[in-house]
């Protein structure tokens, strides 16, 4: 029995900033101090505040340390673990709060969150099934198998109002209900862990921090629809998630929580992994199943829907990782509890990955319907460097942008739909006044052009033509009729693509034109990029009145585009200038301006 637990985050974010060294060092230093019988070191999943990793939390007091390196460890062991004096200089210093927040629960970042899908992330060791069981793991499966009929399970999920967290927001219980009555010698339960939206990483964090919750939910789903085999389709770019899933499956099999005759009820269920090799389209359900079957990942028309004819031609359900992570809690605490959170049509909580121009980059889980302002200003800690909030892109390349004027919009499926935006998988890329919206639309289009599988002409060629037009506009070669042409093409691509990838690919263009048409017009008519991003439209100039002739700019220019003699105003040669901005950054007199 230990008197203190040192929890070190082992999620991908913290791992890449060196948490594995921190864990090694803690183990070593604790042993050196003779505390190894008193203090245990636990590797956990993601805590959410990835920007400040590696994260270390020490219990029982819950002291919250951020950005810990192996060099800080001896001090923490000597001071905190031995003498009980928390090392204040390493403690989380919340923006605006002024003082170091002592405990995790006291921080604004955590106070406004409700963690359901992430309930065990950062709390338990994901590589120990014992710890999952200790927090009530597999009890929902036991309850379902011993006291409920499959119909009751489906009804419970239906009543909870849970909708798919992968993007489309289809009611989960309905999906199960449609599959259950279909007769077949074999049915399948699939988990979509092919998380591909740029900026979204909640599924990875669930798999890394709480893999058993997904296994348990899949077994529950198997019981509900009458399936005995599950597949998790996880992208190969998630090595830590894959490793922990493998460990979790092995441990669950050893404890007979997967396999034959689970809980002595005669119910058999097993799960295997399938690795995806980096095609965005494989996150689309029919393409994903085609890929599991061993074929090239391309979507196929629906109907027949997977519930009737899915994987290997058998009835199949496919849910997203985060959707599954909610299931055991719904069974344990009841549909009414889950439905008490959120809004009329969007129940429960949703995990968002905050990225871009925001102070607290990381993962947050909030009740559906929370105003965008709470997410950006309170939990996210606002925009860095006192810049102005401009917009947030939700749903990655399939979504749209919410401009600053809508900052009080409740974030749920239907409110976002009203302004032609989607929650999508939950990526939120925050943009400030320095982001050019035409450039953002171009960025997402580049992504979809790369990732279009090529099956449908509209998507394959349409996205490329749109990208060419955007490229033209950012270079100052656009024509005013390009805006209408973009919208026309967008409608065409939406209507003529088979799968979600093509149907949603034009969304970033449509929504940026809708809310930021003036920026498009500035690029086209005035040959000016208002945010100062599009290089072709920028020019750097030296104000001869302010220039002292210190030569610093000329010495820093990588292409020797600046000329002038000492103590005389310098001049930039616009033919040579590559617009890198080095001169402006280096000028001590503010003599260089960008237009």
């Amino acid at each position, binding site marked *: 029995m230990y*008197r203190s637990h040192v929890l070190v985050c082992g999620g991908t974010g913290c791992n890449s900033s060196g948490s594995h060294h921190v864990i090694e060092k803690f183990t070593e230093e604790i042993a050196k101090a003779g505390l190894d019988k008193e203090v245990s070191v636990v590797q956990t999943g993601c805590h959410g505040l990835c920007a400040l990793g590696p994260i270390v939390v020490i*219990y*029982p007091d819950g002291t919250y340390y951020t950005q810990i390196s192996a060099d800080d460890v001896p001090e923490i062991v000597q001071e905190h673990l*031995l003498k*009980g004096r928390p090392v204040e200089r390493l403690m989380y210093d919340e923006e605006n709060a002024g003082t170091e927040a002592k405990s*995790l629960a006291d921080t604004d970042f955590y106070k406004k969150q409700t963690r359901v899908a992430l309930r065990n992330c950062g709390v338990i060791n994901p590589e120990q099934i*014992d710890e999952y*069981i*200790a927090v009530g793991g597999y009890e929902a499966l036991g309850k379902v198998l011993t006291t409920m009929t499959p119909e009751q399970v489906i009804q419970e999920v239906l009543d909870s109002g849970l909708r798919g967290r992968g993007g489309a927001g289809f009611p989960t219980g309905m999906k199960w209900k449609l599959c259950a009555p279909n007769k077949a010698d074999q049915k399948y339960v699939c988990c979509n862990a092919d998380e591909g939206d740029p900026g979204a990483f909640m599924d990875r964090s669930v798999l890394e921090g709480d893999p058993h919750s997904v296994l348990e939910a899949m077994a529950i789903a198997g019981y509900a629809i009458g399936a005995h085999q599950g597949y998790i389709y996880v992208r190969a770019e998630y090595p830590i998630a894959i490793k922990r899933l493998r460990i979790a499956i092995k441990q669950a099999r050893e404890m007979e929580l997967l396999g034959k005759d689970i809980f002595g009820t005669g119910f058999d269920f097993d799960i295997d992994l399938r690795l995806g090799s980096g095609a965005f389209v494989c996150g689309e359900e029919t393409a994903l199943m085609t890929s599991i079957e061993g074929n090239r990942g391309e979507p196929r028309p629906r109907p027949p829907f997977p519930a009737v004819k899915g994987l290997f031609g058998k009835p199949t359900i496919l849910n997203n990782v985060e959707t599954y992570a909610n299931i055991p809690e719904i069974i344990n605490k009841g549909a009414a509890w889950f439905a008490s959170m959120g809004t009329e049509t969007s129940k429960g909580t949703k995990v968002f990955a905050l990225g871009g121009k925001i102070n607290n980059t990381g993962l947050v889980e909030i009740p559906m319907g929370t105003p965008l302002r709470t997410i950006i200003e309170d939990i996210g800690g606002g925009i860095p460097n006192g810049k102005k909030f401009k917009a947030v892109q939700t749903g990655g390349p399939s979504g749209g942008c919410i401009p600053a004027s809508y900052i009080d919009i409740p974030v749920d499926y239907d409110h976002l739909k009203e302004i032609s935006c989607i929650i999508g998988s939950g990526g939120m890329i925050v943009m400030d006044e320095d982001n050019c919206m035409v450039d953002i639309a171009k960025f997402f289009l580049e992504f979809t052009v790369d990732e279009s599988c090529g099956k449908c002409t509209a998507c394959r060629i349409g996205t490329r033509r749109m990208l060419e037009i955007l490229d033209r506009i950012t270079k100052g070669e656009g024509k005013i009729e390009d805006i209408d042409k973009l919208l026309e093409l967008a409608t065409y691509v939406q209507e003529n693509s088979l799968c979600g990838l093509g149907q949603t690919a034009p969304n970033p263009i449509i929504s940026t034109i809708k809310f930021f048409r003036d920026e498009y017009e500035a690029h086209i008519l005035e040959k000016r990029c208002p945010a100062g991003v599009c290089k072709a439209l920028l020019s750097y100039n030296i104000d001869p009145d302010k220039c002292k002739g210190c030569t610093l700019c000329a010495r820093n220019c990588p292409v020797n585009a600046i000329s002038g003699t000492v103590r005389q105003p310098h001049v930039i040669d616009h033919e040579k200038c590559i617009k890198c901005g080095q001169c402006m950054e280096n000028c001590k007199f503010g003599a260089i301006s960008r237009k």
Partner: protein
Amino acid sequence: MKSLEELKALREKMRAQVNMRENVGGEHTRVVVGMATCGIASGARPVLNRLSELVQEKDLTDKISVTQTGCIGLCQYEPIVEVLEPGKEKVTYIKMNPEKAEEVVEQHLIRGNVLGKYTLASAGI
């Protein structure tokens, strides 16, 4: 795993391992052990460990947390244990050892009877 009972039994066994990690709220009783050089030298560590063990064994971690603190300036009375209950006056126990710590858990923390014979007041200051 052949029955739900088996799972629940395992959960009971494993609970103590994780329930320390619940976030401490305002309604928590804090048991604080002086662990500065003076405290450690007079034997505070076995006291701290015993207190922590008992609180976990008796499944009290949802109400009570055991932590350390530095020197409070009464080095000659170490090991010192302070019990801080919400809404009550702080109780300071002096010259503790693991056996006395057991009594504190049984009598004070579980039954609510302050052990006057071990408090700072008993030393006449």
